[in-house]
Protein backbone atom coordinates (compact mmCIF):
# COMPACT_ATOMS: atom_id res chain seq x y z
CA UNK A 1 0.00 0.00 0.00
CA UNK A 2 1.40 3.39 -0.95
CA UNK A 3 1.39 6.29 1.47
CA UNK A 4 -0.80 9.03 0.12
CA UNK A 5 0.06 12.66 0.75
CA UNK A 6 -2.97 13.28 2.88
CA UNK A 7 -2.98 15.72 5.75
CA UNK A 8 -2.50 14.11 9.10
CA UNK A 9 -5.03 16.34 10.83
CA UNK A 10 -8.47 17.31 9.60
CA UNK A 11 -8.21 20.86 8.29
CA UNK A 12 -10.13 23.55 10.10
CA UNK A 13 -11.59 26.92 9.16
CA UNK A 14 -13.48 28.09 6.09
CA UNK A 15 -11.92 27.97 2.62
CA UNK A 16 -10.15 31.14 1.48
CA UNK A 17 -12.38 33.68 -0.29
CA UNK A 18 -11.12 36.41 -2.67
CA UNK A 19 -11.04 40.02 -1.50
CA UNK A 20 -14.31 41.72 -2.49
CA UNK A 21 -12.74 44.51 -4.55
CA UNK A 22 -10.57 42.33 -6.73
CA UNK A 23 -11.60 41.31 -10.20
CA UNK A 24 -13.34 37.93 -10.16
CA UNK A 25 -11.16 35.17 -11.47
CA UNK A 26 -12.34 32.14 -13.34
CA UNK A 27 -13.08 29.33 -10.94
CA UNK A 28 -10.02 27.30 -10.07
CA UNK A 29 -10.15 23.57 -10.62
CA UNK A 30 -11.67 21.96 -7.54
CA UNK A 31 -9.02 20.83 -5.07
CA UNK A 32 -9.03 17.13 -4.42
CA UNK A 33 -9.52 15.90 -1.85
CA UNK A 34 -11.68 18.74 -0.48
CA UNK A 35 -10.01 20.38 2.51
CA UNK A 36 -12.81 19.41 4.85
CA UNK A 37 -13.01 15.78 3.73
CA UNK A 38 -12.96 13.35 6.63
CA UNK A 39 -12.96 10.20 4.50
CA UNK A 40 -10.59 9.92 1.55
CA UNK A 41 -9.81 6.89 -0.55
CA UNK A 42 -7.05 7.23 -3.09
CA UNK A 43 -6.99 4.83 -6.03
CA UNK A 44 -8.19 1.95 -3.89
CA UNK A 45 -8.56 -1.57 -5.27
CA UNK A 46 -9.36 -4.86 -3.64
CA UNK A 47 -9.01 -8.31 -5.13
CA UNK A 48 -9.94 -11.69 -3.69
CA UNK A 49 -7.85 -14.28 -5.45
CA UNK A 50 -8.27 -13.38 -9.08
CA UNK A 51 -11.58 -11.58 -8.58
CA UNK A 52 -11.49 -7.80 -8.49
CA UNK A 53 -14.16 -6.58 -6.08
CA UNK A 54 -13.23 -2.89 -6.11
CA UNK A 55 -11.17 -1.28 -8.84
CA UNK A 56 -9.24 2.00 -8.60
CA UNK A 57 -11.73 4.04 -6.64
CA UNK A 58 -10.82 7.51 -5.47
CA UNK A 59 -13.47 9.23 -3.39
CA UNK A 60 -13.81 11.86 -0.71
CA UNK A 61 -16.60 12.32 1.79
CA UNK A 62 -17.25 15.52 3.70
CA UNK A 63 -19.21 16.13 6.91
CA UNK A 64 -22.93 15.53 6.52
CA UNK A 65 -24.83 12.48 5.40
CA UNK A 66 -23.58 10.68 2.30
CA UNK A 67 -25.08 7.54 0.84
CA UNK A 68 -22.87 4.83 -0.58
CA UNK A 69 -25.07 3.41 -3.25
CA UNK A 70 -24.92 0.48 -5.61
CA UNK A 71 -26.68 -2.71 -6.57
CA UNK A 72 -26.07 -5.90 -4.61
CA UNK A 73 -22.59 -7.22 -5.34
CA UNK A 74 -21.36 -3.86 -6.65
CA UNK A 75 -18.56 -3.63 -4.08
CA UNK A 76 -20.18 -1.30 -1.54
CA UNK A 77 -19.53 -3.47 1.48
CA UNK A 78 -15.96 -4.18 0.38
CA UNK A 79 -15.41 -0.45 -0.06
CA UNK A 80 -16.93 0.31 3.32
CA UNK A 81 -14.77 -2.40 4.91
CA UNK A 82 -11.67 -0.79 3.43
CA UNK A 83 -12.75 2.66 4.59
CA UNK A 84 -13.39 1.40 8.11
CA UNK A 85 -10.07 -0.44 8.19
CA UNK A 86 -11.58 -3.92 8.32
CA UNK A 87 -10.02 -4.86 4.99
CA UNK A 88 -6.62 -3.91 3.68
CA UNK A 89 -6.72 -2.44 0.18
CA UNK A 90 -4.79 -4.48 -2.38
CA UNK A 91 -3.56 -1.17 -3.79
CA UNK A 92 -4.17 2.46 -2.87
CA UNK A 93 -4.67 4.03 0.51
CA UNK A 94 -7.37 5.19 2.86
CA UNK A 95 -7.44 8.15 5.21
CA UNK A 96 -10.28 8.52 7.69
CA UNK A 97 -10.71 10.90 10.63
CA UNK A 98 -7.05 11.82 10.77
CA UNK A 99 -5.28 8.60 9.90
CA UNK A 100 -5.23 5.13 8.44
CA UNK A 101 -7.86 3.22 10.42
CA UNK A 102 -5.91 -0.03 10.10
CA UNK A 103 -2.73 1.37 11.56
CA UNK A 104 -3.84 4.26 13.71
CA UNK A 105 -5.88 3.35 16.83
CA UNK A 106 -6.67 7.02 17.46
CA UNK A 107 -8.26 7.35 14.03
CA UNK A 108 -10.16 4.14 14.66
CA UNK A 109 -11.38 5.61 17.92
CA UNK A 110 -12.97 8.47 16.00
CA UNK A 111 -14.98 6.09 13.83
CA UNK A 112 -18.28 4.46 14.72
CA UNK A 113 -19.00 1.34 12.69
CA UNK A 114 -22.21 -0.57 12.08
CA UNK A 115 -21.18 -3.67 10.11
CA UNK A 116 -23.59 -5.48 7.86
CA UNK A 117 -23.66 -8.79 9.71
CA UNK A 118 -26.49 -9.59 12.05
CA UNK A 119 -24.48 -11.19 14.82
CA UNK A 120 -23.86 -9.40 18.08
CA UNK A 121 -22.60 -11.06 21.27
CA UNK A 122 -25.70 -13.12 21.66
CA UNK A 123 -25.25 -14.26 25.25
CA UNK A 124 -24.82 -10.74 26.61
CA UNK A 125 -27.61 -8.34 27.48
CA UNK A 126 -27.82 -5.13 25.48
CA UNK A 127 -26.38 -2.87 28.17
CA UNK A 128 -23.31 -5.11 28.52
CA UNK A 129 -22.75 -5.11 24.74
CA UNK A 130 -22.83 -1.33 24.50
CA UNK A 131 -20.86 -0.88 27.74
CA UNK A 132 -18.17 -3.14 26.30
CA UNK A 133 -17.96 -0.87 23.26
CA UNK A 134 -17.77 2.20 25.48
CA UNK A 135 -15.11 0.69 27.74
CA UNK A 136 -12.94 -0.35 24.79
CA UNK A 137 -13.26 3.18 23.42
CA UNK A 138 -11.81 4.41 26.72
CA UNK A 139 -14.51 6.96 27.46
CA UNK A 140 -15.40 8.00 31.00
CA UNK A 141 -18.48 6.53 32.70
CA UNK A 142 -18.93 3.84 30.06
CA UNK A 143 -22.05 2.32 31.59
CA UNK A 144 -23.87 5.64 31.83
CA UNK A 145 -22.87 6.53 28.26
CA UNK A 146 -24.10 3.13 27.13
CA UNK A 147 -27.47 3.83 28.73
CA UNK A 148 -27.70 7.16 26.90
CA UNK A 149 -26.78 5.55 23.57
CA UNK A 150 -29.43 2.88 24.04
CA UNK A 151 -32.07 5.46 24.84
CA UNK A 152 -31.05 7.37 21.70
CA UNK A 153 -32.03 4.34 19.61
CA UNK A 154 -35.19 3.82 21.69
CA UNK A 155 -34.07 0.73 23.54
CA UNK A 156 -34.62 0.17 27.25
CA UNK A 157 -31.16 -0.24 28.83
CA UNK A 158 -32.64 -2.33 31.62
CA UNK A 159 -33.88 -5.13 29.37
CA UNK A 160 -32.34 -8.25 30.84
CA UNK A 161 -32.85 -10.64 27.91
CA UNK A 162 -29.74 -11.72 26.00
CA UNK A 163 -29.27 -9.99 22.66
CA UNK A 164 -29.62 -13.34 20.89
CA UNK A 165 -33.31 -13.36 21.85
CA UNK A 166 -33.95 -9.99 20.21
CA UNK A 167 -35.60 -9.33 16.87
CA UNK A 168 -33.41 -8.33 13.95
CA UNK A 169 -34.52 -4.72 14.31
CA UNK A 170 -33.58 -4.61 17.99
CA UNK A 171 -30.18 -6.14 17.30
CA UNK A 172 -29.67 -3.56 14.57
CA UNK A 173 -30.38 -0.80 17.08
CA UNK A 174 -27.95 -2.34 19.58
CA UNK A 175 -25.30 -2.20 16.85
CA UNK A 176 -26.11 1.45 16.14
CA UNK A 177 -25.97 2.29 19.86
CA UNK A 178 -22.55 0.61 20.08
CA UNK A 179 -21.35 2.67 17.13
CA UNK A 180 -22.65 5.92 18.63
CA UNK A 181 -21.62 5.41 22.24
CA UNK A 182 -18.22 7.13 21.97
CA UNK A 183 -19.61 10.09 19.99
CA UNK A 184 -17.54 9.41 16.85
CA UNK A 185 -16.50 12.01 14.30
CA UNK A 186 -17.20 9.60 11.45
CA UNK A 187 -20.02 7.09 11.42
CA UNK A 188 -20.04 4.28 8.85
CA UNK A 189 -23.13 2.15 8.53
CA UNK A 190 -23.61 -0.83 6.23
CA UNK A 191 -27.30 -1.32 5.43
CA UNK A 192 -28.30 0.08 8.85
CA UNK A 193 -32.05 0.12 8.31
CA UNK A 194 -32.35 -3.62 7.66
CA UNK A 195 -34.94 -5.13 9.94
CA UNK A 196 -36.31 -1.83 11.24
CA UNK A 197 -39.99 -1.01 10.98
CA UNK A 198 -41.05 2.17 9.12
CA UNK A 199 -41.27 4.28 12.27
CA UNK A 200 -37.84 3.15 13.46
CA UNK A 201 -36.44 3.84 9.97
CA UNK A 202 -37.76 7.39 10.11
CA UNK A 203 -36.29 7.86 13.55
CA UNK A 204 -32.89 6.52 12.49
CA UNK A 205 -32.80 8.67 9.35
CA UNK A 206 -33.63 11.69 11.49
CA UNK A 207 -30.84 10.71 13.87
CA UNK A 208 -28.34 10.42 10.99
CA UNK A 209 -29.39 13.87 9.76
CA UNK A 210 -28.95 15.32 13.25
CA UNK A 211 -25.46 13.84 13.43
CA UNK A 212 -24.66 15.21 9.98
CA UNK A 213 -25.89 18.66 10.94
CA UNK A 214 -23.61 18.72 13.98
CA UNK A 215 -20.54 18.32 11.76
CA UNK A 216 -20.19 14.58 11.80
CA UNK A 217 -19.61 12.55 8.71
CA UNK A 218 -22.22 9.86 8.24
CA UNK A 219 -21.57 7.40 5.43
CA UNK A 220 -24.47 5.03 4.90
CA UNK A 221 -24.33 2.12 2.52
CA UNK A 222 -27.57 0.93 1.02
CA UNK A 223 -29.03 -0.65 -2.07
CA UNK A 224 -32.59 0.52 -1.33
CA UNK A 225 -33.11 3.67 -3.37
CA UNK A 226 -36.14 5.03 -1.52
CA UNK A 227 -34.12 4.74 1.65
CA UNK A 228 -31.09 6.49 0.16
CA UNK A 229 -33.19 9.35 -1.16
CA UNK A 230 -34.24 10.12 2.40
CA UNK A 231 -30.64 10.23 3.60
CA UNK A 232 -30.04 13.29 1.44
CA UNK A 233 -28.75 14.15 -1.97
CA UNK A 234 -25.06 13.37 -1.57
CA UNK A 235 -24.23 10.01 -3.05
CA UNK A 236 -21.25 7.89 -3.97
CA UNK A 237 -22.37 5.39 -6.57
CA UNK A 238 -20.44 2.18 -7.07
CA UNK A 239 -21.23 -0.23 -9.86
CA UNK A 240 -19.32 -3.35 -10.84
CA UNK A 241 -16.54 -2.42 -8.43
CA UNK A 242 -15.93 0.98 -9.98
CA UNK A 243 -16.87 4.48 -8.95
CA UNK A 244 -19.77 5.49 -11.17
CA UNK A 245 -20.32 8.97 -9.71
CA UNK A 246 -20.08 11.02 -6.56
CA UNK A 247 -21.71 14.26 -5.51
CA UNK A 248 -25.24 15.63 -5.45
CA UNK A 249 -27.34 13.24 -7.50
CA UNK A 250 -29.36 16.06 -9.11
CA UNK A 251 -26.16 17.75 -10.20
CA UNK A 252 -24.93 14.40 -11.50
CA UNK A 253 -28.12 14.10 -13.53
CA UNK A 254 -27.59 17.56 -14.95
CA UNK A 255 -24.19 16.53 -16.24
CA UNK A 256 -25.53 13.54 -18.11
CA UNK A 257 -25.69 15.18 -21.52
CA UNK A 258 -25.94 11.84 -23.27
CA UNK A 259 -29.16 10.92 -21.45
CA UNK A 260 -32.30 12.74 -22.76
CA UNK A 261 -34.44 14.24 -20.01
CA UNK A 262 -38.11 13.42 -19.63
CA UNK A 263 -40.24 16.38 -18.60
CA UNK A 264 -43.95 16.66 -17.91
CA UNK A 265 -45.62 19.87 -19.10
CA UNK A 266 -49.08 20.87 -17.90
CA UNK A 267 -50.67 23.70 -19.88
CA UNK A 268 -54.07 24.83 -21.11
CA UNK A 269 -53.23 24.59 -24.88
CA UNK A 270 -51.50 21.27 -24.94
CA UNK A 271 -51.70 20.43 -28.66
CA UNK A 272 -50.57 23.84 -29.87
CA UNK A 273 -47.73 24.12 -27.41
CA UNK A 274 -46.56 20.56 -28.14
CA UNK A 275 -46.65 21.16 -31.89
CA UNK A 276 -44.65 24.34 -31.47
CA UNK A 277 -42.05 22.57 -29.35
CA UNK A 278 -41.69 19.75 -31.87
CA UNK A 279 -41.41 22.25 -34.71
CA UNK A 280 -38.72 24.17 -32.84
CA UNK A 281 -36.53 21.07 -32.59
CA UNK A 282 -36.23 21.50 -28.82
CA UNK A 283 -37.77 18.11 -28.16
CA UNK A 284 -36.86 14.69 -29.52
CA UNK A 285 -40.09 12.96 -28.52
CA UNK A 286 -43.45 13.53 -26.90
CA UNK A 287 -46.49 11.68 -25.61
CA UNK A 288 -49.73 13.48 -24.88
CA UNK A 289 -51.13 12.06 -21.65
CA UNK A 290 -54.38 14.05 -21.41
CA UNK A 291 -55.85 17.26 -22.77
CA UNK A 292 -53.64 19.25 -20.42
CA UNK A 293 -50.55 17.09 -19.94
CA UNK A 294 -47.74 16.01 -22.21
CA UNK A 295 -44.56 14.11 -21.53
CA UNK A 296 -41.66 15.59 -23.44
CA UNK A 297 -38.24 14.08 -24.12
CA UNK A 298 -35.51 16.62 -24.70
CA UNK A 299 -31.76 16.48 -25.08
CA UNK A 300 -31.31 20.21 -24.50
CA UNK A 301 -33.10 21.30 -21.34
CA UNK A 302 -32.08 24.96 -21.55
CA UNK A 303 -33.35 25.32 -25.09
CA UNK A 304 -36.53 23.46 -24.15
CA UNK A 305 -37.22 25.90 -21.31
CA UNK A 306 -36.79 28.86 -23.66
CA UNK A 307 -39.01 27.36 -26.34
CA UNK A 308 -41.80 26.35 -23.97
CA UNK A 309 -41.99 29.91 -22.69
CA UNK A 310 -42.13 31.27 -26.23
CA UNK A 311 -44.84 28.79 -27.26
CA UNK A 312 -47.02 29.49 -24.23
CA UNK A 313 -46.75 33.24 -24.80
CA UNK A 314 -47.57 32.79 -28.47
CA UNK A 315 -50.73 30.76 -27.81
CA UNK A 316 -51.60 32.65 -24.66
CA UNK A 317 -51.51 29.33 -22.84
CA UNK A 318 -51.40 29.07 -19.07
CA UNK A 319 -48.28 27.11 -18.08
CA UNK A 320 -49.17 25.25 -14.91
CA UNK A 321 -46.28 22.90 -14.42
CA UNK A 322 -42.93 21.78 -15.79
CA UNK A 323 -41.77 18.73 -13.89
CA UNK A 324 -38.60 16.74 -14.60
CA UNK A 325 -39.51 13.06 -14.51
CA UNK A 326 -36.11 11.42 -14.38
CA UNK A 327 -33.85 13.51 -12.18
CA UNK A 328 -34.84 11.39 -9.22
CA UNK A 329 -32.30 9.12 -7.65
CA UNK A 330 -33.73 6.01 -9.24
CA UNK A 331 -33.30 7.39 -12.75
CA UNK A 332 -29.83 8.68 -12.03
CA UNK A 333 -28.92 5.35 -10.51
CA UNK A 334 -30.36 3.44 -13.48
CA UNK A 335 -28.35 5.53 -15.94
CA UNK A 336 -25.15 5.27 -13.90
CA UNK A 337 -25.36 1.58 -13.23
CA UNK A 338 -26.46 0.82 -16.75
CA UNK A 339 -23.43 2.66 -18.07
CA UNK A 340 -20.86 1.29 -15.65
CA UNK A 341 -18.11 -1.11 -16.37
Amino acid at each position, binding site marked *: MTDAPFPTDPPTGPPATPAPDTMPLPPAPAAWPPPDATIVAYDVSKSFGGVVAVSNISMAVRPGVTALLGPNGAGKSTMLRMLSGQ*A*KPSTGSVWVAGGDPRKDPEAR*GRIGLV*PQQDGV*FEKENLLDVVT*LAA*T*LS*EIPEPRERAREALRTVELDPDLERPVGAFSKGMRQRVKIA*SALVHNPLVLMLDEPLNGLDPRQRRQMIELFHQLGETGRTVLVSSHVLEEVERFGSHVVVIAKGRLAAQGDFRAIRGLMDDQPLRVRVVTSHIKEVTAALVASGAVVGCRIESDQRVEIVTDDIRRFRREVAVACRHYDARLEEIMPLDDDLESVFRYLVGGAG
Partner: protein
Amino acid sequence: MTAVLVMFRMLLRQQIAVGRFILAGAFTALFVILALTSSGSPSEELESTVLVVLGLGLNLMVPIITLVAATSALGDLVDDETLVYLWHRPTPRWKLALAAWLASVAMAAPLTILPLALTSLLSSGATAAVGAAASAALSVLAYSGLFVFLGLLLRRALIWGLLYLFIWEAVLSNFADGVATLSITTYPTSVLANITEVDVGLNPRSTAVSIIVSLVVAAVGVALTARRLDTMDIA
Protein backbone atom coordinates in the same frame (compact mmCIF):
# COMPACT_ATOMS: atom_id res chain seq x y z
CA MET B 1 -5.95 -3.50 32.08
CA THR B 2 -9.69 -2.76 32.12
CA ALA B 3 -9.88 -3.49 28.39
CA VAL B 4 -8.23 -6.90 28.85
CA LEU B 5 -10.57 -7.77 31.71
CA VAL B 6 -13.80 -6.81 29.92
CA MET B 7 -12.75 -8.66 26.77
CA PHE B 8 -11.64 -11.67 28.82
CA ARG B 9 -14.98 -11.81 30.61
CA MET B 10 -16.93 -11.52 27.38
CA LEU B 11 -14.82 -14.09 25.51
CA LEU B 12 -15.14 -16.53 28.39
CA ARG B 13 -18.92 -16.18 28.43
CA GLN B 14 -19.10 -16.73 24.67
CA GLN B 15 -17.02 -19.90 25.02
CA ILE B 16 -19.28 -21.60 27.50
CA ALA B 17 -21.24 -24.23 25.63
CA VAL B 18 -22.87 -27.47 26.72
CA GLY B 19 -21.05 -29.56 24.10
CA ARG B 20 -17.66 -28.49 25.39
CA PHE B 21 -18.55 -29.49 28.93
CA ILE B 22 -19.82 -32.89 27.75
CA LEU B 23 -16.50 -33.47 25.96
CA ALA B 24 -14.55 -32.48 29.06
CA GLY B 25 -16.83 -34.61 31.24
CA ALA B 26 -16.27 -37.67 29.07
CA PHE B 27 -12.49 -37.30 29.25
CA THR B 28 -12.62 -36.72 32.98
CA ALA B 29 -14.78 -39.80 33.59
CA LEU B 30 -12.45 -41.98 31.49
CA PHE B 31 -9.43 -40.63 33.30
CA VAL B 32 -10.90 -41.13 36.76
CA ILE B 33 -11.91 -44.72 35.98
CA LEU B 34 -8.48 -45.64 34.61
CA ALA B 35 -6.57 -43.92 37.40
CA LEU B 36 -8.63 -45.36 40.23
CA THR B 37 -8.64 -48.89 38.84
CA SER B 38 -4.86 -49.04 38.48
CA SER B 39 -3.51 -51.06 41.40
CA GLY B 40 -0.31 -52.50 42.83
CA SER B 41 2.22 -51.80 45.57
CA PRO B 42 2.56 -48.13 46.73
CA SER B 43 5.54 -47.52 44.41
CA GLU B 44 3.77 -49.27 41.55
CA GLU B 45 0.67 -47.23 42.32
CA LEU B 46 2.60 -43.97 41.88
CA GLU B 47 4.17 -45.22 38.67
CA SER B 48 0.88 -46.43 37.22
CA THR B 49 -0.86 -43.16 38.18
CA VAL B 50 1.91 -41.12 36.57
CA LEU B 51 1.68 -43.20 33.42
CA VAL B 52 -2.11 -42.68 33.29
CA VAL B 53 -1.62 -38.94 33.91
CA LEU B 54 0.90 -38.90 31.08
CA GLY B 55 -0.85 -41.21 28.64
CA LEU B 56 -4.42 -40.09 29.05
CA GLY B 57 -3.97 -36.72 30.73
CA LEU B 58 -0.99 -34.89 29.22
CA ASN B 59 -1.03 -36.61 25.84
CA LEU B 60 -4.78 -36.59 25.27
CA MET B 61 -7.16 -34.91 27.70
CA VAL B 62 -5.25 -31.69 28.39
CA PRO B 63 -4.25 -30.86 24.80
CA ILE B 64 -7.64 -31.75 23.36
CA ILE B 65 -9.67 -29.80 25.92
CA THR B 66 -7.24 -26.88 25.55
CA LEU B 67 -7.50 -27.18 21.77
CA VAL B 68 -11.30 -26.92 21.94
CA ALA B 69 -11.20 -23.96 24.36
CA ALA B 70 -8.38 -22.07 22.66
CA THR B 71 -9.41 -22.40 19.03
CA SER B 72 -12.88 -21.17 19.92
CA ALA B 73 -11.63 -18.17 21.93
CA LEU B 74 -11.28 -16.03 18.80
CA GLY B 75 -12.24 -18.61 16.16
CA ASP B 76 -15.89 -18.52 17.21
CA LEU B 77 -15.87 -14.74 16.80
CA VAL B 78 -14.42 -15.11 13.32
CA ASP B 79 -17.09 -17.67 12.44
CA ASP B 80 -20.04 -15.63 13.70
CA GLU B 81 -18.45 -12.38 12.46
CA THR B 82 -18.52 -10.65 15.85
CA LEU B 83 -14.76 -10.14 16.08
CA VAL B 84 -15.18 -6.75 14.44
CA TYR B 85 -16.87 -5.36 17.58
CA LEU B 86 -13.66 -5.90 19.56
CA TRP B 87 -11.23 -5.43 16.70
CA HIS B 88 -12.50 -2.04 15.56
CA ARG B 89 -12.03 -0.33 18.91
CA PRO B 90 -8.86 1.68 19.60
CA THR B 91 -7.53 -1.06 21.88
CA PRO B 92 -4.03 -2.42 21.16
CA ARG B 93 -4.17 -5.81 19.46
CA TRP B 94 -2.02 -7.48 22.09
CA LYS B 95 -4.72 -6.81 24.67
CA LEU B 96 -7.27 -8.71 22.63
CA ALA B 97 -4.77 -11.54 22.08
CA LEU B 98 -3.98 -11.64 25.79
CA ALA B 99 -7.67 -11.64 26.72
CA ALA B 100 -8.29 -14.57 24.37
CA TRP B 101 -5.36 -16.50 25.84
CA LEU B 102 -6.61 -15.82 29.38
CA ALA B 103 -10.11 -16.93 28.41
CA SER B 104 -8.74 -20.16 26.98
CA VAL B 105 -6.69 -20.80 30.12
CA ALA B 106 -9.64 -19.98 32.36
CA MET B 107 -11.84 -22.38 30.41
CA ALA B 108 -9.39 -25.27 30.08
CA ALA B 109 -7.57 -25.12 33.42
CA PRO B 110 -10.40 -26.13 35.75
CA LEU B 111 -11.55 -28.83 33.34
CA THR B 112 -8.10 -30.42 33.22
CA ILE B 113 -6.00 -29.52 36.25
CA LEU B 114 -8.65 -30.24 38.87
CA PRO B 115 -9.63 -33.76 37.74
CA LEU B 116 -6.01 -34.75 37.12
CA ALA B 117 -4.84 -33.45 40.49
CA LEU B 118 -7.80 -34.78 42.51
CA THR B 119 -7.71 -38.23 40.97
CA SER B 120 -3.93 -38.46 41.39
CA LEU B 121 -4.33 -37.40 45.01
CA LEU B 122 -6.91 -40.08 45.66
CA SER B 123 -5.04 -42.84 43.91
CA SER B 124 -1.40 -42.12 44.79
CA GLY B 125 -1.10 -39.20 47.18
CA ALA B 126 0.20 -35.65 47.23
CA THR B 127 3.34 -36.10 45.10
CA ALA B 128 1.38 -37.44 42.16
CA ALA B 129 -1.22 -34.68 42.61
CA VAL B 130 1.38 -31.91 42.59
CA GLY B 131 3.10 -33.42 39.56
CA ALA B 132 -0.18 -33.79 37.72
CA ALA B 133 -1.37 -30.28 38.56
CA ALA B 134 1.91 -28.58 37.67
CA SER B 135 2.39 -30.43 34.41
CA ALA B 136 -1.24 -29.93 33.36
CA ALA B 137 -1.02 -26.21 34.17
CA LEU B 138 2.09 -25.78 32.03
CA SER B 139 0.48 -27.73 29.24
CA VAL B 140 -2.65 -25.54 29.33
CA LEU B 141 -0.60 -22.34 29.30
CA ALA B 142 1.55 -23.39 26.35
CA TYR B 143 -1.14 -25.04 24.23
CA SER B 144 -3.49 -22.10 24.80
CA GLY B 145 -0.95 -19.76 23.22
CA LEU B 146 -0.49 -22.01 20.21
CA PHE B 147 -4.14 -22.89 19.66
CA VAL B 148 -5.58 -19.37 20.11
CA PHE B 149 -3.32 -18.39 17.22
CA LEU B 150 -4.34 -21.47 15.23
CA GLY B 151 -8.04 -20.63 15.78
CA LEU B 152 -7.49 -17.20 14.30
CA LEU B 153 -5.26 -18.39 11.48
CA LEU B 154 -7.20 -21.34 10.09
CA ARG B 155 -10.73 -22.34 9.37
CA ARG B 156 -11.40 -25.82 10.80
CA ALA B 157 -8.66 -25.16 13.33
CA LEU B 158 -10.00 -27.98 15.48
CA ILE B 159 -9.20 -30.56 12.79
CA TRP B 160 -5.77 -29.11 12.08
CA GLY B 161 -5.08 -29.02 15.79
CA LEU B 162 -6.04 -32.67 16.21
CA LEU B 163 -3.80 -33.63 13.29
CA TYR B 164 -0.95 -31.70 14.87
CA LEU B 165 -1.50 -33.39 18.23
CA PHE B 166 -1.68 -36.89 16.84
CA ILE B 167 1.00 -36.65 14.16
CA TRP B 168 3.58 -34.34 15.71
CA GLU B 169 3.07 -34.50 19.44
CA ALA B 170 2.02 -38.15 19.80
CA VAL B 171 3.96 -39.90 17.02
CA LEU B 172 6.90 -37.98 15.54
CA SER B 173 8.16 -36.55 18.83
CA ASN B 174 8.67 -40.09 20.16
CA PHE B 175 11.12 -41.02 17.41
CA ALA B 176 14.09 -38.93 18.46
CA ASP B 177 15.12 -36.72 21.35
CA GLY B 178 15.83 -33.87 18.93
CA VAL B 179 12.27 -33.94 17.68
CA ALA B 180 10.97 -34.18 21.23
CA THR B 181 12.71 -30.87 21.97
CA LEU B 182 10.26 -29.27 19.53
CA SER B 183 7.28 -30.95 21.14
CA ILE B 184 5.26 -28.94 23.65
CA THR B 185 4.27 -32.00 25.69
CA THR B 186 7.94 -32.80 26.38
CA TYR B 187 8.14 -29.96 28.89
CA PRO B 188 5.07 -30.65 31.05
CA THR B 189 6.04 -34.32 30.94
CA SER B 190 9.52 -33.41 32.19
CA VAL B 191 7.99 -31.51 35.11
CA LEU B 192 5.81 -34.51 35.94
CA ALA B 193 8.86 -36.84 35.79
CA ASN B 194 11.00 -34.48 37.87
CA ILE B 195 8.41 -34.05 40.63
CA THR B 196 7.35 -37.70 40.89
CA GLU B 197 10.79 -39.14 40.02
CA VAL B 198 9.10 -41.73 37.85
CA ASP B 199 10.78 -42.85 34.63
CA VAL B 200 8.38 -41.87 31.87
CA GLY B 201 10.58 -43.06 29.01
CA LEU B 202 11.85 -39.58 28.19
CA ASN B 203 15.10 -37.74 28.75
CA PRO B 204 13.56 -35.12 31.07
CA ARG B 205 14.50 -31.46 30.74
CA SER B 206 15.07 -29.51 33.94
CA THR B 207 12.01 -28.06 35.64
CA ALA B 208 13.28 -24.51 35.15
CA VAL B 209 13.84 -25.03 31.43
CA SER B 210 10.44 -26.69 31.12
CA ILE B 211 8.67 -23.76 32.79
CA ILE B 212 10.55 -21.21 30.71
CA VAL B 213 9.95 -23.02 27.42
CA SER B 214 6.22 -23.42 28.17
CA LEU B 215 5.86 -19.74 29.03
CA VAL B 216 7.84 -18.73 25.93
CA VAL B 217 5.52 -20.85 23.76
CA ALA B 218 2.53 -19.12 25.36
CA ALA B 219 4.06 -15.67 24.86
CA VAL B 220 5.00 -16.38 21.25
CA GLY B 221 1.45 -17.62 20.64
CA VAL B 222 -0.02 -14.39 22.06
CA ALA B 223 2.43 -12.30 20.02
CA LEU B 224 1.59 -14.16 16.81
CA THR B 225 -2.12 -13.75 17.55
CA ALA B 226 -1.65 -10.00 18.02
CA ARG B 227 0.32 -9.83 14.77
CA ARG B 228 -2.34 -11.78 12.94
CA LEU B 229 -5.06 -9.47 14.30
CA ASP B 230 -3.07 -6.56 12.94
CA THR B 231 -2.71 -7.91 9.43
CA MET B 232 -5.86 -9.92 8.77
CA ASP B 233 -9.04 -8.75 7.06
CA ILE B 234 -12.06 -8.72 9.36
CA ALA B 235 -15.58 -9.56 8.24
